[in-house]
C-alpha cells in the first residue's frame, strides 16, 4: 500500500474515530483494555444480539495507532456474527505477529501490515483485537 494513503487512513481514523464516546445503555458488555507495554487505556462497549455484534463503542485515551486501529476495527466488525468476528481477529493478529493471514478478510485493517517493523507498536495495533477477544470469551464463559 502507498505510504501516503496508509498514513491518511490512519490519521483520519485517529482524528475522527468511529463510535468514540459512551452511551447509556445496559445492553452493552464493557471491558477495559489497558495496554501493558504503554499508556493506552481504552474502554470498550459491545452490544451483541442473536450472535451478531450489533454495535461497538469505545472511550479513553490512546496513541494514534491504538485509536485508529480501534476505529477501523469497529467499522469492520459491526454487523458480523461471532464466528466471522473471530476469523477476522485471528487473521488480523496473525498479520501483526508476522504469521500467515488472509489479507482479503481485513479490508482497511491492512494499513497495519507493516507495523511489525516497529516492534514497540505491535501492542498498540493489537489493543482492539485483544479487547474484543476478551469480551467474546467473557460472553462464552457466562
Amino acid at each position, binding site marked *: 500500500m502507498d505510504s501516503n494513503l*496508509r*498514513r491518511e487512513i*490512519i*490519521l483520519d481514523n*485517529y482524528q475522527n474515530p468511529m463510535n468514540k464516546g459512551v452511551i447509556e445503555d445496559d445492553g452493552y458488555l464493557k471491558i477495559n483494555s489497558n495496554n501493558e507495554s*504503554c*499508556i*493506552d*487505556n481504552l474502554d470498550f462497549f459491545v452490544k451483541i444480539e442473536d450472535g451478531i455484534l450489533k454495535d461497538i463503542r469505545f472511550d479513553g*485515551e*490512546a*496513541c*494514534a*495507532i491504538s*485509536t485508529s486501529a480501534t476505529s477501523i476495527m469497529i467499522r469492520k466488525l459491526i454487523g458480523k456474527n461471532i464466528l466471522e468476528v473471530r476469523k477476522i481477529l485471528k487473521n488480523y493478529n496473525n498479520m501483526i505477529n508476522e504469521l500467515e493471514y488472509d489479507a482479503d478478510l481485513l479490508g482497511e485493517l491492512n494499513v497495519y501490515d507493516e507495523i511489525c517493523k516497529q516492534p*514497540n*507498536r505491535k501492542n498498540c495495533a493489537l489493543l482492539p483485537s485483544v479487547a474484543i477477544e476478551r469480551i467474546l470469551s467473557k460472553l462464552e464463559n457466562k
Partner: protein
Amino acid sequence: MNREDFLMLNEDIVYLDNGATTLKPKEVVQSMVDYYTKHTSNIHRGEYDAAIITNQLYDGARDVVAKFINSESSEVIFTSGSTMSINMVVFGYMKKHLKRGDEVLLTKSEHASNILPWMKLSEDIGITIKFMELNEDYELTVESVLKSITERTKVISIAQVTNVVGDVRDVDAIGKICKEKKILFNVDGAQSVPHMRVDFKKSNMDFLSFSGHKMCGPSGVGVLIVKKELLDEMEPLCYGGGMNQSFEADMTYELKVGPSKFEAGTPPIAEVIGLSKAIQYLEKIGIEKIHEYEVELKKYLVKELEKIPNIILYNKNSNSGILAFNIDGVFAQDSAIYLNHFNIYVRAGNHCAKILKDNMKIKNTVRVSMYFYNNKKDIDRLIEALKKSEDIFKIVI
C-alpha cells in the same frame, strides 16, 4: 559537565530520562567489573584475600552512604531499591505500630510505591489515608501540611521531590513539625538524593528511601535509612542466612541487631560496591553544584519551550530538573515516539503517579528529566525537534 565519563554519550543521543534511570560513569562500571573479575567472593566469613577486599568494600559502602546523607552507618540498610525500602517501612514497621483509624498523610503526586503499600495496609489494618492538598502548581506547601494534620495523624509519607511535578518539598520544615507533633516522617528520596543535598538528621527524618540506579549507580540496589531507635522496633520481611544470630531445633531463634537483620541472603554485592562508587563520584562533582546546574538548565529549557506556541507546560516553576509537557493535541506516547526519531530519549505516561490526574486534569505527559551531564546543546536539539512537530504524524505513522 563530565560527559566524557559516560560511554553512552559517545552515541548520538540526547538522554533526558534521568527520572527513570541514569547513565553510569565508567568508574562505577569498572568497580563492578573488578568485583566480577578480580575479587568475586561472598561477604562475611571469608578468610581469603579476595573476600577481605569484598568485605571492606561492602561494609565501607555503609559509611559512604551514611556520610553522604548524614546518618549513622548503623542506620543504613541495603535493599533492592526505593520500592522495597518503602514496603519495608510500611509492612515491617507501620503494620506493627499503627492501628485502625490512625491517619497517614500522603499527596496525590506520590509515586505508586508510596501509595499502594499504604492502600494495602489500610485494607489490612484499617488505617486512614488522607491526601494533603496541592497548590495551583501541584506543589505541597508547609501550610497545607499543617492544615491536614489532626490528632489522629501518625505518619507523613512524602517524596522530597516528586517525579512528575519535580517540586522540592520543604522537608526541614515538615520534619520539624513532625518532631513537635510526634508524627513519623517517611521520606521517599528517589528523586531528591541523586540531585541535591539531603540531610537525614537535620530534616528529622525517621525513614528515608532511595535507589542506586537513579544516581549513577547500578539497578537492583537501594537504601533504607531508619532512625536507630525505630530500627530495633522494625521487623524484617525476609528471613534466612546472614540475618540470624542463632536458631535451634526447639524452634527458638535470635535475630541479629542492626541493618544486617534486614539483609537476608546474599545481598547484591557488586551493586552495593557500584552504588558506593557512584556516591563518591557524585561527591567529587559536588551534589550542591549538581542541583544548581540542573535548576539553571531547567530555566533555559522553560524559556526556550515557552517560545513554541503548541507546547503545554505543567510544572515550569518547580525547582528541579524535571519538566512535564505535552504537544497540544498529541498523545504523549506519540510525542515520545516522535522525539525518538531524533534520538531524543524522554518518557511518556503517567509516570506511576496515577492519581495526580485528579489535579492536573490530564493523565499522560511527556517528561524531560535532566542530570548534570545534560547540557544546553541537548536542550537545543529537543527544541529544534519540537519546533518541527507539525509534521509529527508523518513520522510516527
